[in-house]
């Protein structure tokens, strides 16, 4: 019995696609005016790191051909009915998202602290007493709270300088001890490389952090997720 690994949600009538992952057939799962491009498998395999990269490449090719919403890697659909149910359950959201971000690309900015807090700085070392433990944790909380404030200030500054519309910015501050900011910015096709260059120039001038600017790639961070009715 076939299983389908979803790649993108798109409008009906797109260009003929290449093959799916591992050279398997790529199928159009029809859901009315919208549908899902998915690789057809005879059984659900264990997906690998290479499959994740291949999914990313395939999503890129599909999005180059027509406005698409990328689907999170590893989203399986049992059959065409499951695909239809997923689309019907969120049709309005998908259609609106396709209109807004389907023909756009995403540029990612990651800021890494130049001096990430050590485990001791985060208060993880064993203390000599209960009081010493709490005092150490108080200092650690103060340090991380300060870091978060700095990261929020960086996010506000970058967001206001790089995006005309704040709806085109998503960010997370301090997602890990090493990372100050993970930000995604939307750009129109054809303007994404220029945005990337502006972001790279901007982050190079920031003190206390090292910037990494990636993309452009399909708008993963701004896409609606395939519903829980058919995917998992």
């Amino acid at each position, binding site marked *: 019995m076939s299983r389908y690994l979803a790649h993108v949600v798109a409008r009906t009538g797109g260009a003929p696609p290449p093959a799916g992952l591992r050279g398997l057939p790529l199928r159009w799962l029809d859901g009315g005016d919208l549908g899902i491009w998915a690789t057809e498998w005879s059984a659900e395999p264990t997906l690998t790191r290479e499959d994740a990269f291949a999914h990313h490449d395939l999503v890129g090719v599909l999005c180059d051909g027509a406005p698409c919403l990328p689907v999170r890697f590893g989203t399986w659909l049992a059959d065409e009915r499951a695909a239809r149910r997923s689309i019907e359950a969120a049709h309005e959201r998908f259609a609106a998202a396709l209109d807004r971000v389907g023909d756009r690309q995403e540029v990612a900015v990651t800021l890494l602290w130049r001096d990430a807090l050590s485990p001791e700085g985060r208060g*993880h070392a*064993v*203390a000599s*007493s*209960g*009081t*010493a*433990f*709490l005092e150490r*944790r*108080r200092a650690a*909380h103060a340090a991380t709270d300060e870091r978060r404030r700095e990261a929020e200030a960086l996010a506000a500054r970058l967001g206001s300088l790089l995006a005309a519309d704040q709806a085109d910015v*998503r960010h*997370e501050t301090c*997602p890990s*001890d090493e990372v100050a900011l993970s930000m995604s910015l939307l750009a129109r096709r054809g303007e994404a490389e220029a945005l990337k260059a502006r972001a790279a120039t901007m982050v190079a001038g920031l003190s206390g952090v090292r910037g990494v600017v990636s993309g452009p790639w399909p708008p993963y961070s701004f896409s609606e997720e395939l519903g*829980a009715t058919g995917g*998992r």
Partner: protein
Amino acid sequence: MDVDDELAELRRELERVRGILPERVDVDPEGVEQGLAKLVLTLVEFLRQLLERQAIRRMDGGTLTDDEIERVGLALMRLEGKVRELAQAFGIDPDDLNLSLGPIGKLL
């Protein structure tokens, strides 16, 4: 803040968390034990950190005696050590004890 207030605050926090935890859990038979351990230990660590913040607030507010600070600190330190020890026993990096809450970030 008395004990009832603290319990009420904790209850509100639990209600908030219950509303935002993922609805679906990976039930892959190979990973279910580790996945469940990670979920439980993350929630224990979340509560431990909540109590720790509260203890520090009370320490700063002067509502705990030196002896109480010592006892609370010792209990929280031992609990943290036990959580990390159990995580390692299940093959989980203690620093990975966290839950993604989607657009609003992470639990811890």
